[in-house]
Structures are given as structure tokens and as C-alpha cells.
């Protein structure tokens, strides 16, 4: 690619695996950093073992779950139990600017690769650790899956319908956005500080704390007002009508948000100024909030007669905030996302061309570059050993025989 990228010349040693970590380093990789992903054949990044697989056929090099968060990275595989593998890692650390890891707290220290160890050999390193529960506290060693982070921080309790069981977002949101994006922001802030002062630092992100930072209101409402918020479907605290309404077809809905009196008038106009909308019970926002159950039922009786696309067109024309509840197929075929080239297809030795999400930030001068499919296990081991450690063919083969790479 011809243009220079903001992180050209920055090398990242990436010990992350599974969820939040690899998405963090993907951001760095898209904007020019050289990201070296360290894997081990005996302890795989287990997303490699989880579906979806190309053509539904399982295989270590066939998972789209793994590939979508690991493009543009170089993959090397090392047997971390081998003494010489550790030496190689230390040599790579000396040549790196950033380390990122998301193991359980203190795992890296047990390998002699904690921040205090690393800064002895690379004093200005930026070292980002993302332990699940942080590095201290009574539950520091507790374990959990992504969905359980959502359970701990209230996403399950707060998302769903009040009369039903807690549900949540149906996906491990903290892993996919709040944890990686906060970590990436902190790394970049630390990088700016290093460029100004020469000083590196340690960044700790607890995977239950960062996502709580984007869910502040229920916490504040409890601590300040003593109220324990419950899940409330699709109601809005400030406006009505607000929610999801059925349209023609199975599992087809449209989302509507009326946020002002003008917008209510627009919605009424779109509905053909029905008589019921003039009732006192819906006269102003306060009444509409008080009577929203009834209001939503009436609106649903109207929306259900329409095909989603037709209704969306009608509402947008009337300047009503509306959007279809799109499933993955709709999203992949969405005209807007495709106009903006949000989906990029990259070629891969075993999977062939398959889909990746492009950066949602479009930069005019230094647009993200997404041009390498996710690495095969150990795909770049030899190249990295040669380029960064000056290992010649003979030495590489000898170490390979010794079992340094796996």
C-alpha cells in the first residue's frame, strides 16, 4: 500500500488470544503497526477450534470466528516450554514497542515475562495487560467466559423484558467493543506520551471495569437515588413512542424513536393522521410515556401491515427516526454498508476469499489498510526469525528439530 499509516514503524508483540485482546491488536494492525501474534500449536488460540468454519468443515485453519479478528498480523508459533523459545521472545521484546496480553492475572509473570521483567530488557516498552478481574482483589483468580462478564456487570439483568428472565445482548459485547477499544485508546495515549518523553509504561485494564464505564447510568441511579433499575424492553426513559414493532414476515421488525413533539407530528402524518392519535392519552410526551403500552400496541397494529422496506421508506420520507432490525444476511447485503465498502474479502490459503469487517473509521489521509487474511498457525515463524533475529536457514532448521517451534 502506498500511503503511510499512523503506526508504521511500530512493532507489537501480541500474546493475546480469544476475544478482547486480538480485537485490540487488530486496530493497531489495520493502521500500520507490525503485529506479531505469538501462538503455540499445543495451546491454540481456541477460537481456531470454534465455528463458523469454511463450508462448515472444522479445521484449525478454517474458522471465521478466528480470522475476522486476526487479519494483517504475522503469526509465529513457539513452544513456550522450551528454554530457547523464551530466549527468542526476549530477543523479540528488545525489538518491540508494545506488548499486549489478555491472560489470567499474573500468567506472564510466571513465565518471567511480566512488566517488571520486561522493562529490565526494554525500559521504554508499552505493556498492556487485560486480566479478566484486574490484577488484585478478592476475586482476582476467578474465571469466566465472555457471557459471564455480561452477567457480572449487569448487561444480562438490564437487557430483556421485565416479566421475563434476564437475557442480555445475545453476544459478548464487552469482548467486542468496550474492552478492546478502551485498551487500544490507552495504548495510543501511552504511545503519544512515549513519543513526547521517551517513557514507556504499564497499562492495566480489568475486563469487568472498562465495560462498566459505558454502563454508568444504572450504577449512578442506584448510588445516588437508591433505585435498582430493571430491564425495560425497548422503552426509553425520556420519550415515547420508542421501540420495536412487527412488520410483514417472520422475525421482521422495525425500530422507531420519537424524540420530540415535531417527530410525533411526523409519525402521525406518516400514519395518515389516524383519529386515535388525537386522544388525550397521547397528547404530549408525558402522556405518551404514561400510556406507552397501549400506544405501542396500536402502532404495532399499523406497522404489521407493511413490508419492512416499504415502511422504512415511508417513515424516512416523513423524517421519522426508523430502522429495520437487520439480521446478518441483511447486514452483509446492506446497500449503505456496501456503498461504504465495509466488507472486505481477503484470500486465504485454506479458506479462499472470505469476509472481514473494515474499520468503521474512514480516514481521509491515512485510511486503514486491510490486505492480509489471518495467519496460518506459524505462517511467519521462519520469516520473523530471519528478518528480526538474523537466524539463517541452518540455525532455523536446527532449532526446529529441537522443538523450539511448534
Amino acid at each position: 500500500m502506498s500511503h503511510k499509516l499512523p503506526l508504521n514503524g511500530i512493532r507489537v508483540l501480541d500474546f493475546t488470544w480469544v476475544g478482547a485482546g486480538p480485537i485490540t491488536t487488530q486496530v493497531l494492525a489495520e493502521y500500520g503497526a507490525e503485529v506479531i501474534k505469538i501462538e503455540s500449536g499445543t495451546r491454540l488460540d481456541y477460537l481456531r477450534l470454534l465455528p463458523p468454519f469454511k463450508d462448515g468443515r472444522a479445521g484449525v485453519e478454517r474458522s471465521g470466528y478466528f480470522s475476522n479478528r486476526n487479519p494483517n498480523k504475522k503469526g509465529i508459533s513457539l513452544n513456550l516450554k522450551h528454554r530457547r523459545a523464551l530466549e527468542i521472545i526476549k530477543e523479540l521484546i528488545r525489538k518491540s514497542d508494545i506488548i499486549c496480553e489478555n491472560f489470567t492475572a499474573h500468567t506472564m509473570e510466571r513465565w518471567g515475562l511480566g512488566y517488571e521483567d520486561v522493562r529490565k530488557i526494554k525500559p521504554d516498552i508499552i505493556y498492556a495487560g487485560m486480566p479478566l478481574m484486574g490484577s488484585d482483589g478478592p476475586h482476582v483468580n476467578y474465571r469466566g467466559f465472555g457471557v459471564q462478564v455480561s452477567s457480572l456487570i449487569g448487561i444480562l439483568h438490564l437487557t430483556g423484558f421485565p416479566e421475563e428472565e434476564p437475557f442480555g445482548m445475545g453476544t459478548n459485547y464487552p469482548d467486542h467493543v468496550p474492552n478492546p477499544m478502551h485498551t487500544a485508546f490507552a495504548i495510543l495515549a501511552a504511545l503519544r506520551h512515549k513519543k513526547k518523553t521517551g517513557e514507556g509504561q504499564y497499562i492495566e485494564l480489568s475486563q469487568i471495569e472498562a465495560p462498566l464505564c459505558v454502563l454508568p447510568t444504572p450504577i449512578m441511579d442506584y448510588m445516588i437515588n437508591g433505585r435498582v433499575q430493571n430491564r425495560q424492553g425497548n422503552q426509553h426513559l425520556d420519550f415515547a413512542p420508542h421501540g420495536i414493532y412487527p412488520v410483514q414476515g417472520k422475525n421482521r421488525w422495525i425500530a422507531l424513536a420519537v424524540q420530540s413533539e415535531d417527530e410525533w407530528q411526523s409519525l402521525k402524518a406518516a400514519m395518515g393522521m389516524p383519529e386515535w392519535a388525537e386522544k388525550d392519552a397521547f397528547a404530549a410526551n408525558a402522556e405518551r410515556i404514561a400510556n406507552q403500552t397501549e400506544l405501542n400496541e396500536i402502532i404495532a397494529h399499523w406497522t404489521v401491515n407493511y413490508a419492512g422496506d416499504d415502511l422504512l421508506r415511508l417513515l424516512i420520507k416523513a423524517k421519522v427516526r426508523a430502522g429495520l432490525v437487520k439480521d446478518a444476511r441483511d447486514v452483509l447485503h446492506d446497500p449503505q454498508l456496501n456503498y461504504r465498502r465495509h466488507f472486505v474479502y481477503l484470500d486465504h490459503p485454506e479458506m479462499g476469499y472470505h469476509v472481514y469487517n473494515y474499520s468503521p473509521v474512514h480516514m481521509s489521509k491515512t485510511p486503514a489498510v486491510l490486505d492480509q487474511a489471518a495467519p496460518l498457525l506459524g505462517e511467519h515463524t521462519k520469516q520473523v526469525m530471519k528478518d528480526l533475529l538474523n537466524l539463517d536457514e541452518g540455525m532455523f532448521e536446527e532449532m526446529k528439530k529441537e522443538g523450539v517451534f511448534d
Partner: protein
Amino acid sequence: MSKSQGSLSGIRVLEFAGEIGNYTGKLFANLGAEVIQIEPIEGNPVRRAAPFYKDIPDKEGSLQFIYQNTGKKGIVLDIEKEQGKEIFLKLAKTADLLLESSPPGYLNKLNLGYDRLSAINPKLVYTSVTGYGQNGPYRDYPWSDITTLAMGGLLYLAAQGDDLPARVPDNQAFMMGAMHAATGSMLALIEAEYSGRGQYLDVSLQECVATALENAIQLYDLEGSIRRGIGHFEAGMGIYPCQDGYVYLVAGIGGNVNLWNTFVDWLIEEKVEGADIFIQDEWKTPQFRRKAEAKQRFNEIFVPFTMKHNKLYLFENGQNRRVTIHPVNNPRDICEDSHIRYRKFMADYFSESLGGQVFMPGAPYRLSQTPWNLGAEPPKLGQHTAEILQEIGYDAKQIQDFMQGGVCFVAQASS
């Protein structure tokens, strides 16, 4: 370098981004950037968002507004007026980053678009966050949090089977836009500090949402199927009721036998009646655990045990035996959680104007050399208008005239 300076000290951010960009500005402010929020005459719409401090509706009392705006300065300006525009341009000349979230084309029409601003300040990074971005067929669609969550595909996942999905609180589409805008802007600032040239960033909420679908897009691309949320997929995985709410257990997940064995050992240690059948080999396979009869049998044995205990007991006792079980916490549970308290995650300060203590989530990360800092109380409406106008060269008389002409709003000195 002194530890008291944040990693972003020396960066000036102009935030004119309403409800979408507040959190972006907060991320910058808490790491030491100087963030000036420009509010319209009627104030940032978030000032009107419930709930309020002590449930008293007030333009300084919105909990969301308070949370998103500590450590910032605030100026109130009508940029549609000629003098307002002039002030905006003078401010833009002093800034490193402009955050805005107006409908596409709006600032261009006022002649405050990127081309104009970069001509007077070449190093400026100009970041726009909108529902669908600056081009394409949906460019001018009106948006809100729920509509962009829907159009980006995340809302569909928030249910199972044929159920109606539900929206997560706190405007997560806006939050995603804010986080991506912050990271993108930071990349562009690093580049601008090196090259001396800023650039234009176009962030679409729909795209931010579409990047958060876990594996749903790839599942359709590679296997042709469409997913939603996963509920009780197999016995030993999902939500189970207990004495005071619910717990979330992951003991059965695919071929992971260790998790299952650890779980069964715990039940046997707890003398759970009937748990010894879980030792049988069939229970160690996902194929068996996915059967309706297995799920039913599991509930008959496990739920009587969970109903005897509260979620904290099940959490701590299970975890101490390496079982991955968690409480389904509500906001009170989170605030009272011993681990969160031990780590002093919550931040607080005394507010004289609100007449009490303010509590909120604290730092999302800990930086060893350049610590995060909550900063001062959020600006009252127009609190820094006069100070900032003076800084860019206006005198008291001019400021008075602006105020009378409705160009700006100046808060009266401390009440």
C-alpha cells in the same frame, strides 16, 4: 516528565458532538487533554436525559450528563449566527481535534466544514460521527440509538428463537461510535503531531455496530446460517434461578470435559442429591447435553440446589472450586461487590451545587506513568463562555453584546 501530567496534555479538543461525542471527549479529558464542549443555546440534549440527581430534573442534574462531562470546559454558542461562526472559527484555529455529530452537510452549509477549517488550521483532526456516515444511500436518514443498533445487526442478536429483541441501556450505539471515534482520532493525532497535517475522519454508527456482531457475519458468509442469541443451548450452560435471583453457569460447553468434571466434583462435594448421575460418560458429551430430556433432568437435580443458596454463595463457593459460575448482578449487586470495592473502581466527589456526593464508574484503565484523572465537576451551562472568549481575544463589552444578541450564553458567576 512529571506524573501529574496526563498522557494527552497539550492536546486541545473542541467537542460539538451532542449526545454522541460526549464519551469521546471524556476519554480525552480524563487523560489530560483540554476539552472544550460547545453547547447550543438550549444546552446539550443530554442535560435533559433522565434519571436526575436525587430525581430532581435540572439542567445540571442529569446523571448521564454529569458522568460524561467531568474534566471539561463548557461554552454555549449559537454557531448559526455570524458572530457565533466567527467565534467557532477562532476556536477551531486553536484546536488539535474537532469532534462533531451534526447531520451530514450541516457544518458545510454553515461554511464550517473540513476544507474551511483545515485551511486555517492545517494540523486539525476533524472527526464526524453520524448515524450512517457522510455518503451513501442512507446518508440523510434520521437516526437514534435504537435505529442504528437495528440497522447494524446487533439488536437482532438480543433474543433467541422468534423472540422480540430488547435494547441494552445507556445508548450503546452512541458509545460504540464514541469509542471508535476516540481511537481513530488518537491515531490521526499521533500522525498529525508527526507530519504537521491533520485529516478528516468519517465515523458511521451503523458500521461501528456492524463490527460488533461477534461471528454472525462470518457464520452467514461461511456456513450460510443466521444466528441470534444463545440461551439454554445445552444442559449446564445458561441462566439458572437461585434464592435471590439468577446465576449464569458454564459447565457444559462443547467438548470441554474439564469444565464439566470440575462442576460435577463441586456438586458431589456439596452433597447435591442425584448429582452422581452426571459422572456417567454420556453427560460429558454436548450431543447428549443438548437433548431436551438431558436439560430437564439437569434442572431437576441442579435447581433444587441453587434455590437453597443465594447468588453470592454460589459464585464464591463455585469459583473457589474452579467452577465457572457467576451471579446475574443487578446495579446494587455491582455497587456492593467486594471485588469492585476492593479495587476502588467507583469514583466520587462532593458537589456543592448539587448539595451532595456524586458517585460514578471510575477509570476504565490504569496507566502507571500518566494516571487517569476524573477532573473537575462538569461545566454548568455557559460556565466557561466568558473565560474562553477572553482567551481568544474578545473583551468584556463584546461578550456582553454577544450575550444580548443571543450569540452566546454566559453563566453568572458562582451562585
